[in-house]
C-alpha cells in the first residue's frame, strides 16, 4: 500500500496554505480547513496519516489529518490548543496562512481489514485521526463486516464532532457506543470507561481488527480487554503520539526503541509494540 503523495518542495519545506475556515469543536479544540484548490489533485492522503503544521515564526507540530480521504479537495485538521504553537495556529484565523508538510506516516490498515469486523476505539482527541478511517469504512461499507465505534471522553462537553457522532448513532451501518468519565444529571448516555463498552460489542475474535487512538493508558486497558476476548495482538492497531520533529525519520526525537514513530508509525500493530510500549524506561 502506498503511503500517499510526497511533499513537492523537499521534505523539510512547509507549503503555505490559506485557512478556509476554522470551527470550534470543544472549549480547547478546533477544526481548521485549509485551501488546497491551487494544488493539482488537492491533498491526497490515507486515513491515519499526519501533517506537520507550521505557525510561522512560532513552531511546528504534528497533527493528524481528520478529513475524508475520498475528498482530497478538503484538508481538515482537528487541533487541541495545548501550547504556544497550537495557540498560534488557532490565532491564524480565516484567510491567514499556515505552513504544511506531509502527509507522513503509516496509515490505518484498512486493506488488511477488508472482509473483517472492525472495532474502532477512540478516546478524547483520538477520534480525530480515526475520523478519516470511519469515513472510509462508511464509504466502502459493504467491503467490511460489522463495524463498531466506541468513543470515550472526559465529559459530554469534551466529545468531538458531536453532531456527526449523533448522525453516526442513527446510522444502522455502524454500532456506536459513547461514554464519558463524568457527567451531570442532564446526560442520558453512558458513564464509565471505554474498555467497559467492549462488553456490549459482539466480537468474533478471529475475524476482528481493532483500530485505536487515545491516551496510552486507555489503550493499554482496552488492549487488555481485547486480548481477554481473544483478539490477536497482530490485529490490534494503535496510533501513537510521540515528540515528532522532522517527521521523516532523520532526527530521532520520536524514536521508540526500534521505531521512528513518524516513519514506522504512527499506526503500529500491538504485537510489534508490545515489548516497547509499557516498560517505564522507554
Amino acid at each position: 500500500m502506498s503511503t500517499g503523495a510526497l511533499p513537492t518542495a523537499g521534505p523539510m519545506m512547509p507549503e503555505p496554505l490559506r485557512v478556509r475556515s476554522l470551527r470550534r469543536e470543544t472549549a480547547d479544540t478546533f477544526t481548521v480547513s485549509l485551501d488546497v484548490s491551487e494544488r493539482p489533485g488537492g491533498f491526497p492522503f490515507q486515513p491515519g496519516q499526519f501533517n506537520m503544521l507550521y505557525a510561522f515564526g512560532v513552531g511546528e507540530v504534528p497533527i493528524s489529518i481528520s478529513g475524508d480521504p475520498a475528498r482530497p479537495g478538503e484538508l481538515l485538521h482537528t487541533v487541541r490548543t495545548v501550547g504556544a504553537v497550537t495557540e498560534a495556529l488557532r490565532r491564524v484565523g480565516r484567510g491567514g496562512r499556515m505552513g504544511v508538510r506531509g502527509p507522513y506516516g503509516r496509515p490505518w490498515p484498512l486493506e488488511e481489514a477488508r472482509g473483517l469486523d472492525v472495532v474502532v476505539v477512540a478516546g478524547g482527541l483520538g477520534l480525530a485521526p480515526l475520523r478519516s478511517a470511519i469515513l472510509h469504512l462508511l464509504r466502502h461499507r459493504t467491503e467490511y463486516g460489522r463495524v463498531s465505534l466506541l468513543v470515550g471522553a472526559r465529559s459530554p462537553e469534551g466529545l468531538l464532532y458531536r453532531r456527526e457522532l449523533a448522525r453516526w448513532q442513527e446510522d444502522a451501518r455502524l454500532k456506536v457506543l459513547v461514554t464519558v468519565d463524568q457527567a451531570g444529571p442532564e446526560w442520558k448516555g453512558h458513564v464509565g470507561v471505554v474498555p467497559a463498552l467492549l462488553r456490549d460489542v459482539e466480537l468474533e475474535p478471529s475475524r476482528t481488527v481493532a483500530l485505536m487512538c487515545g491516551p496510552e493508558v486507555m489503550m493499554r486497558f482496552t488492549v487488555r480487554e481485547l486480548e481477554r476476548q481473544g483478539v490477536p495482538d497482530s490485529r490490534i492497531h494503535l496510533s501513537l503520539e510521540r515528540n515528532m520533529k522532522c517527521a521523516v525519520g532523520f532526527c530521532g526525537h520520536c524514536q521508540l526503541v526500534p521505531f521512528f514513530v513518524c516513519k514506522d508509525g504512527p499506526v503500529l500493530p500491538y504485537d510489534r509494540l508490545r515489548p516497547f510500549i509499557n516498560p517505564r524506561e522507554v
Partner: protein
Amino acid sequence: MASSLPPIEEHPFLRGLSPEQVKAIACDVREVSFPAGALLLREGDEARTLFLLRSGRVSLELNVPGQGPRQLETLKAGDILGLSWLFPPYRWHLDARAVEPVESFALDASCLRGPSPEHPVLEPALAMRLLRQLYERLERVRMQRMDLYKVGP
C-alpha cells in the same frame, strides 16, 4: 405476565453455576421493574437487596450539595447493583436511578448472607463472583480517577 427475559440461572452473574448453587444463592428472589427516573437505591436507606439487572440502564449517582446529582457510572443488563448489604451499617452509599425502564431480579440480603448479619456466611461461589465484580469495578474506578483525557501533567 410472564417475562420474556432469560431466567435467573442465565444471568451473567450466575451463569455456569450448578442448579444447587443457584438455589443456595438465589433463595429469596423477586422480579422487579422500575420506570425511567425511578430510584432503585436511595443513599442512607437500609441496604437489603442485591439486584441482578436484566434490562435497561441504571445510573449510579452521588448527590453533591449545591451541585445536584453527579453520575458516577452506568450499569446495564448483565450487571449487578447494590453491595452495601455486605457490611455494617447496611445502608446504601449512593443513589441508583433508572435511566430507562429497568427489569431486575432482587435477591434478599438476609438470605444471601445467612441468618446472622454480624457473621455472614456467603456461598463460596457467590463470594468469588462478588469479589470479581468488585475487582473489575475497582479497575474502572482507578482509570476514571486518572482523568486520562485531561490536558497536560
